[in-house]
């Protein structure tokens, strides 16, 4: 009994040491021991010293070994490594513009959406409570990305991470797409990957704004969503941006039965989210440039294009969806990044 208590003390002291060293997101981590690292590296054939990217803001050198150590601390199983490595590569891609995500007062976070058979192999949730707790793969893969941003990228809250409020997705923000219960083309296929591929896509997102819907058909769903989106609050500084929308199984079924494709939904949202220049000015927004001479009655679209509205099928249940304000993309220069998951 005494020996067991002693072992317990060592475990607690080691976890405390990780806190003291500043390696955690505020929750306890699995201590990064040599044995743990060796176990985690069994999940990949890649060289531990391979550099897979440079993470802003501190230009941290991201190696396979650092990914494995942070995945270990986050609570991942070794078999999660291919997903974690693909996500790490995606956030390190300069196109993702992680420096803005990591440090901005806006307080956004990389939202990971996983497609393909890996979801079933690892138990990545795409249905009920999809943004919520309870699924180890979602929670720990998502958490690994945050620990990498902190420990390798140096995005320490209150220091280089200047988020005013942040949001809970900054702990873990990883969902699967519910391809099997969707009338639509999966996200990764839209983005040019074969259906049988496993892919992770990262978006630079604010927290989920949830909306529940009354009874009604496809247009009711879309009118309800666009009414929510037209709030002047969303016409913030800097002009038209991007949007990520998650629609649950029932919304998808209703929209699909009414022959709405993902593309049709994008088009509807794009065309029905606008306010006049006069309304925006009166609200005191910096949505328009200070020197804009746009007439007061001219319509200003909230989003920059149909293509800048990303529809994701996730969530099961009773007509609830969510939208996430998403950083402005620039075709071929900045925007969401997808990486195939190499098993």
């Amino acid at each position, binding site marked *: 009994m005494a020996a067991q208590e002693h072992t317990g003390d*060592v475990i607690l*002291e*080691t976890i405390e*040491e*990780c806190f003291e*060293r500043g*390696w955690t997101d505020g929750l306890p981590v699995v*201590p*990064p*021991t*040599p*044995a743990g*690292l060796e176990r985690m590296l069994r999940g990949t054939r890649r060289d531990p010293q391979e550099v897979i990217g*440079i*993470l802003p803001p*501190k*230009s*941290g*050198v*991201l*190696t396979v070994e*650092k990914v494995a*150590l*942070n995945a270990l*601390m986050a609570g991942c199983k070794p078999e999660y490594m291919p997903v974690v490595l693909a996500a790490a590569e995606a956030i390190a891609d300069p196109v993702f*513009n992680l*420096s*803005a995500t990591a440090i*901005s007062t806006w307080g956004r976070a990389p939202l990971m959406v996983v497609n393909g058979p890996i979801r079933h192999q690892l138990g990545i949730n795409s249905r009920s409570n999809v943004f919520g707790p309870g699924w180890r793969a979602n929670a720990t893969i998502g958490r690994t990305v945050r*620990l990498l941003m902190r*420990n*390798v*990228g*140096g995005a320490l809250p209150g220091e280089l991470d200047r988020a005013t409020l942040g949001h809970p997705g900054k702990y873990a923000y990883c969902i699967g797409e519910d391809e099997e219960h969707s009338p639509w083309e999966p996200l990764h296929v839209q983005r040019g990957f074969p259906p049988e591929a496993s892919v992770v896509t990262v978006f630079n997102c604010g927290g989920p704004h949830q909306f529940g819907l009354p009874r009604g058909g496809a247009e009711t769903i879309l009118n309800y969503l666009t009414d929510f989106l037209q709030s002047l609050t969303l016409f913030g*500084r*800097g002009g038209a941006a991007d949007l990520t929308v998650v629609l649950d199984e029932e919304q998808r079924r209703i929209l699909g039965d009414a022959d709405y494709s993902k593309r049709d939904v994008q088009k509807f949202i794009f065309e029905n989210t606008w306010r006049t220049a006069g309304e925006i000015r009166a609200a005191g927004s*910096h949505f328009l440039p*200070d020197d804009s001479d746009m007439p007061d009655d001219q319509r200003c679209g909230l989003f920059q294009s149909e293509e800048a509205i990303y529809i994701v099928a996730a969530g099961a249940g009773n007509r609830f969806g969510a939208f996430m304000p998403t*950083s*402005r993309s*620039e075709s071929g220069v*900045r925007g969401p990044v997808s990486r195939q998951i190499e098993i």
Partner: protein
Amino acid sequence: MSDRPTLLDPTGGTAIEKVHPAKRPDSLDGKVLGILVNAKPNADVLFGMIEKRLRERHAIKKVVWGKKEFVGHRAPPGLVESMASECDAVITGTGD
């Protein structure tokens, strides 16, 4: 005696070599001054005031304004390089 396990460092080294601040000019008299605006609202107002004050105090030869296209993006390709070659000193910062 501690029997805690060895812990491996999960933090990364940095890819940035140590850099030193550029040499500061002794005076702005006769110099080309660059102002790089970060594209936040009111940044141009703030930097306009700074320009006015500096022009009152120094015989600045010329002021070159550069502007990022969007606050969340880096300066467009070539802008930093062209300002570095044209200007004797550049002021940048965050307005909001």
